[in-house]
């Protein structure tokens, strides 16, 4: 198998606020033989977009130009970074004057934005580049009878003509990725909806009520854990969880996990290697859903067939 190379784009939230995402993603990518490079990236521009359009565009373009200079596809973990970078690409493709503005600034540090680079989310890379078959080969400890409610993430799904992540109405890639681990992706109300994070610093009450609604929908779905793959959603759930009444929050949410954490566990990695202990709320019951350790790997393989997806 040829080694795949990407420029890992962590964004602002992951390194110091959601390090479990970086740790688990790096660990899983390493196990899959996907090589990632760290470039001196800056903010993707997303937080600047509300009020400083040009600064947003320049920030995004600088990152894109850095990756282009190394001829690497950018691999993002954050879905808002993905959306921001993709939107910036389209703005720059449409407007010659914006491209000139950006390139005049970038030229000062010897960079040029050509618009030939690609940006992909981790899950797109796993689905389209690594492939489900290869993932299935590496799953040694699949989950059994684990119902997962996944939140697709607005800025990856839409606007679909720009993000190219999946079908915005009937997406399937995360469901299929989950099924590879033996888990069942549960159909639920909140699947394609907003987590409220974009309003957190703008209208706190509204933001909290929106994530509260998602948590209620999650509870109603009967799923065992919530899967999110955007640091903003991860932190939003944590924030809401810490603000709700303890009794209520436990009732609403048993645990949360990122996809690379679930995949890593199914690949036989230890929870500590995937920084599972940093999640709030912790998905402590996950181990009970896992097949026996690799010593009985053959049996585990047989069990995988029984774990039927519900979605």
């Amino acid at each position, binding site marked *: 198998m040829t080694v795949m190379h990407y420029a890992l784009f962590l964004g602002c*939230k992951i390194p110091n606020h959601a390090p479990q995402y970086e740790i688990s993603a790096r660990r899983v990518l390493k196990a899959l033989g996907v090589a990632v490079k760290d470039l001196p990236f800056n903010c993707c521009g997303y937080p600047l977009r509300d009020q400083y359009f040009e600064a947003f565009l320049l920030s995004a373009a600088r990152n894109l130009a850095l990756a282009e200079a190394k001829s690497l596809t950018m691999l993002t973990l954050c879905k808002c970074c993905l959306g921001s970078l993709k939107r910036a690409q389209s703005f720059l493709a449409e407007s010659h004057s914006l491209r000139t503005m950006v390139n005049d600034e970038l030229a000062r540090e010897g960079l040029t934005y050509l618009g030939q680079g690609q940006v992909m989310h981790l899950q797109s890379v796993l689905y389209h580049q690594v492939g489900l078959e290869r993932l299935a080969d590496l799953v040694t400890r699949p989950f059994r009878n684990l119902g997962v409610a996944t939140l697709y993430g607005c800025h990856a799904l*839409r606007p679909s003509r720009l993000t190219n992540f999946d079908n915005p109405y009937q997406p399937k890639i995360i469901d299929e990725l989950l099924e590879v681990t033996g888990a069942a992706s549960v159909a639920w109300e909140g699947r394609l*909806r*907003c987590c409220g994070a974009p309003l957190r610093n703008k209208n706190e009450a509204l933001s909290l009520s929106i994530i509260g609604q998602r948590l209620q929908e999650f509870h109603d779905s009967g799923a065992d854990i919530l899967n999110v793959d955007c640091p903003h959603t991860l932190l939003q759930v944590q924030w809401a969880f810490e603000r709700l009444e303890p009794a209520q929050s436990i009732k609403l949410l048993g645990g949360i996990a990122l996809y690379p954490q679930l995949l890593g566990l199914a690949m036989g990695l230890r929870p500590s290697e995937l920084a599972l202990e940093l999640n709030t709320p912790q998905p402590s019951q996950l181990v009970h859903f896992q097949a026996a350790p690799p010593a009985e790997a053959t049996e585990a393989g047989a069990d995988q067939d029984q774990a039927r997806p519900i979605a």
Partner: protein
Amino acid sequence: MFFQLSLYAALLLCVLGLVYKARQWLVVSVSPSDKKYRPGPRAAAVGRALVRAIFSARMWRFAKALMLDGFLQRRSLRHSVLAWLSHVFIFTGFAGLLLLHALGQQLVAPLVADYYPTLNPWLLLRDLFGGMVLSGVVLVICRRLLVPGLRATTRLTDRFAIGILAVVLLSGFALLAVKTNSAASYERMVQEYGMLDAPQEALALRSLWARDYGVVFPAGQTSDKADVLALGQRLNQERCVQCHARPQSAFLSYGLARVLRPLSLACDRWDAAQALYYIHFLACFIGLALLPFTKFMHLITAPLLMAFNAAVDRQGMDPAGRAFLRGLELDACAHCGTCSVHCSVATAYRQVPNKNILPSEKLASLAALVRGGGDAAQLAKVRQGAYMCSDCDRCTMLCPVGINLRDLWAALKEDLADAGLGSPYQEAAAAAQHKAEPSRQQEVVPVRMGRFQSTLKLSAQVGNFSECYSCKTCTNACPLVFRTEWPAQELDLLPHQVMFCLALGMQEEAMGARMVWDCLTCYQCQEACPNLVQVTDIFYELRNMASRAARG
């Protein structure tokens, strides 16, 4: 006498400055909540924390931090070898000069028999340390000019520090070089130590020093006869070498002396050595006197803070002690610019020319704010910087001194809120809503056809609001609309109504709708639009336009 007087004056000023600063750590309120804590409880809290640290295993961490982070600069080595090298050169070189050269009589003489600064290794070491400091200064200047992002952070305090170091070092080298060449200096030495009896002895020794050590004498005072030089050699062995090593040992000064040789007689005439001596020690004393108010202050505050960080658990610390630490942190910044070079939103500074976007500059503004406020324009700039921060925490993680910038930024936002300055987003929203208010009260709103199009030109694609045919699909797809009971009352306008407003040229009404400001940017409207109107992107643009208007 003048030397002594100016030294004591400088020391006195330095001590007074330090006392003033230390008092500030006990009284300033970096965060509004710090106002509660009087100097007494602050000092007590810090004292308690330190005592607890000293009698615990943390003492070991304290010592380790001082060694690794303080002297060896481990934290700065991690992100830039050049920054580390320049700092180590300056710090080690200067410490060497201070201990062996400036305080030689006080520190080295009691320890070493027959101490003469003109002997080796002292002569050699002085040039070596001086060379280190000078290379460090040159490196710092190069980095400040060439490292992207560092140049923008260079301010008076950096120029002063570089300048004063350069003056001290260059005057020192020049002084030694001039004295090496100087016939006058030579004669003074011989007078004092030589004990020469006959004129031919004086001629012999002069001739030897001219030939071997490069002293420049007026014409006719030396000879190149072999027997004269042989006598000179003998006299040199007898009278000089016990106390004076070959001037060549001071390899840098000697090199400079060779360059200055043609000017030597003129230098003697103008007494250049004396002038350089004054420049040299006065520059040192100016640096010393101003230490508490320049970036040199970090010599004291940075190790103090590092030691505190290692020994004291901040989370569990008495808030009165935290108030003290915040005050100390304002003076601990070495203004090295590391935070600003690595800042996630530093790129935005190139589009929004406000230095307060850069953490090192924002910290300086915070310090000024805490000490005496600032005018409205300055506050507005600081606020913009504070709110453009993307909270990535890189600055906190990278600060070589260990300043908890995350904590200070939170304090800054509280200070601003206290001064009536909240989030610029909310302020822009409120201003836009205020402008739209009058027309909402009217039964019939006047339509201004076509005025909008000319101002919306950030991107060609998002001007397509006029393609809306009001099918309301966007509104039906909107989760905000879905969750409100009375959308018109709670959101002012529904998504399709915003598009309609724009098509009618009612720009202010559109910008003032809460729909625009509370939009989640989930893009469901835009995704659903059958005519590809970029509803969400248009909302983004309305926010931008209103924000620009609010900024003025």
